[in-house]
């Protein structure tokens, strides 16, 4: 019983962070049609924002929002100067964002050094469930991540901005010929994607060593999660993340932790081979 609880909690924790990262990556991938190889560095940007602001004495929960905004602003800035030139060149975009990531890493290294930084958890203490003692802070992280995913989902489905974004998702050419200035939405969507990554980083900051390279751990599974989730559904990336995270925890528990990591990536390749359209497949639109 306690094993089940521990698996569930460990899984939920991993998935909540991974889900945010993958969601951001998915928004960018689906809207702009490019893969943001610098996504991991935005995680670090979020985490360092928290490091700097909590050092200044701001409460952690306030810094979360600022970190997300910093990530978003940086994303919007980079989109309007660099990324927008790459919209129809997905392969160039991979190279350029890869380079961008390295530059960001170096800038962070210059600013903060390569010594890992840490942030004190704002919530201390543990709670006991079924003989298992689990940090309260992790639960708050899971709740915060779920809330962020839900807010993103509502934003994309209920707002007029979301309507436009979905239309771009579903048929980019039609959105353009209906009068949508896609560039403006690309900019915002890229910002939302990087903002989500920064938020993930800010949630991670009190949990892990803060380093310019800290995003690397989440990036590979997030990529696979986005592919698994398919390109037409926003929440597909989150479903993909749940699959990746859940599997990693289960394999890690059954075999070794290293196998958990490697096994998930291998299985993901198999899944992608078998269902190339992703885990959540499109119901085919009816054509008379």
């Amino acid at each position, binding site marked *: 019983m306690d094993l089940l609880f*521990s698996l569930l909690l460990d899984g939920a924790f991993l998935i909540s962070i991974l889900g945010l990262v993958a969601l951001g990556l998915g928004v960018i991938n689906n809207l702009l049609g490019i893969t943001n190889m610098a996504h991991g560095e935005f995680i670090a940007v979020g985490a360092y924002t928290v490091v700097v602001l909590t050092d200044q004495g701001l409460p952690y929960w306030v810094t979360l929002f600022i970190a997300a905004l910093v990530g978003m602003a940086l994303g919007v800035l980079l989109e309007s100067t660099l990324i927008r030139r790459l919209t129809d060149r997905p392969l160039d975009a991979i190279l350029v964002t890869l380079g961008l990531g390295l530059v960001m890493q170096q800038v962070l290294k210059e600013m903060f050094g390569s010594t*890992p930084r840490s942030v004190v958890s704002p919530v201390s203490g543990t709670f006991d469930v079924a003989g298992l003692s689990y940090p309260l802070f*992790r639960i708050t992280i899971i709740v915060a991540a779920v809330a962020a995913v839900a807010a993103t989902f509502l934003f994309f489905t209920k707002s007029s901005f979301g309507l436009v974004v979905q239309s771009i998702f579903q048929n980019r050419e039609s959105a353009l010929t209906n009068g949508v200035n896609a560039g403006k939405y690309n900019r915002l969507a890229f910002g939302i994607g990087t903002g989500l990554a920064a938020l993930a980083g800010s949630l991670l900051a009190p*949990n*892990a060593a803060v380093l310019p390279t800290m995003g690397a751990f989440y990036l590979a599974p997030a990529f696979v999660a986005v592919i698994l989730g398919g390109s037409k559904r926003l929440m597909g990336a989150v479903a993909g993340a749940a699959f990746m995270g859940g599997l990693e925890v289960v394999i890690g528990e059954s075999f070794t932790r*290293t196998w958990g990591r490697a096994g998930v990536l291998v299985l993901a390749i198999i899944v992608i081979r078998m269902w190339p359209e992703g885990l959540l497949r499109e119901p085919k639109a009816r054509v008379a």
Partner: protein
Amino acid sequence: MSKSNNNSIEDPRESNKLGRRLVLKTGLGFGAAAALAPVLAACSSDAADETSNTGSNDTATSPDGTPAEATGDPIKVGYIGDLTGVLAQQGQIQLNCFELAVKQINESGGIGGRPIEAVTEDTASDSAQAIEKSTKLALEDEVVTVIGGITSSVREAALTVLPNEKIPFFYTTFYEGAAAGATACDEYLIATGQIPNQQVAPLVPYLSENVGKKYIVVGNDYIWPRGMTEVLEELLVEEGGEVVSSTYFPLGTTDFGPFFKELADADADICWVTLVGSDQDTFLQQYKQFGATTQIVSLSMNDDIAATNPEISEGVITVQNYLAGIESGNNTKFLEEYRAENGADTFPIAIGEGAYNSVYLFKGAVEAADGSTDPTDWIPKLSGVSFDSPSGSIGIDADTQHAITNSYIGKVGADGVIEILDEEKAVVPVVEGCILS
């Protein structure tokens, strides 16, 4: 000089006139010119190296008594280390210490008058890069020795390249010795970090006496952590202790959640941590969140980590061949000079001190070999060299080519300062069946 020779062939009279005029103008007497001549001659031919160095002191001095800049043909020394990735922080400190030694030596006359030219390469904790960079240092840069290395995988990778090229490798990090199939006995491997009988062997009895004998192990998944567990288990047979479970996570893990359930179930006295780099920081952070109270013993804890993150490092026990708290004149001077270069609040660490010592040991051996940079000449001289290092007097054991060092057991205090609890002097490295001399 060769230019004036050419001139004299073309037009001897013109050249003579010019020569006299120059000498008169610069006001240099013949004596000074004559004194310069042999040095310049030595520069132009390798064969002259040995003769020019014979009988010279460690430190070449200029007439006014201050240490002279080394001006001879440079000796190329390579550095490889993890300057990016999980171990970037440790790698940077290792490099800082290496560079400090190079700077000090070059400012005080170099190695028998020849300056050290350092060539730095990043291996990023990656075997493939370690092979590529070692090959580059050996074949392209033609260095005469390589110093550095952190992870065992990088060490093993470098050792597939350097011995073939007859380039000795000073490995400066504590490691698993001959456990887990690691290479510990190679005529081109010189280790200035500690091996288990120097690091763990003094620590385990201390822990048995002061903490307990029941261990739970968490480490990164590669050769060093697994090798260290092997060594620990062997030592515990004598002590009557046990390792109840061991878990290994891949490098770069950011969530150790699954381990804490095991920890809670294990009821161990000691949590034996062989996580490296930022993984250790992440682990300690989460350790605190999970409210765990088992005594942590971490072999990669150091002053730098403790000072940067005291709130999570407090209470951790470690054992190292160098700790900043060592009270000696040499260490005070070392700390001063390190901080002058790298900042007031910075700390050198054991693997850095190992790199620092390596440069000096290399210098000593080359000078003892009359300035020869041929390893067959200077390696045999290593065991005769002793160096007053920041951590005390050290030397190289002739049989194993590993350093004879002191061991310091320390515990991180609430202020992030590692307090030295116990020490053992001049521990001789033991690598079974290894006789290189």
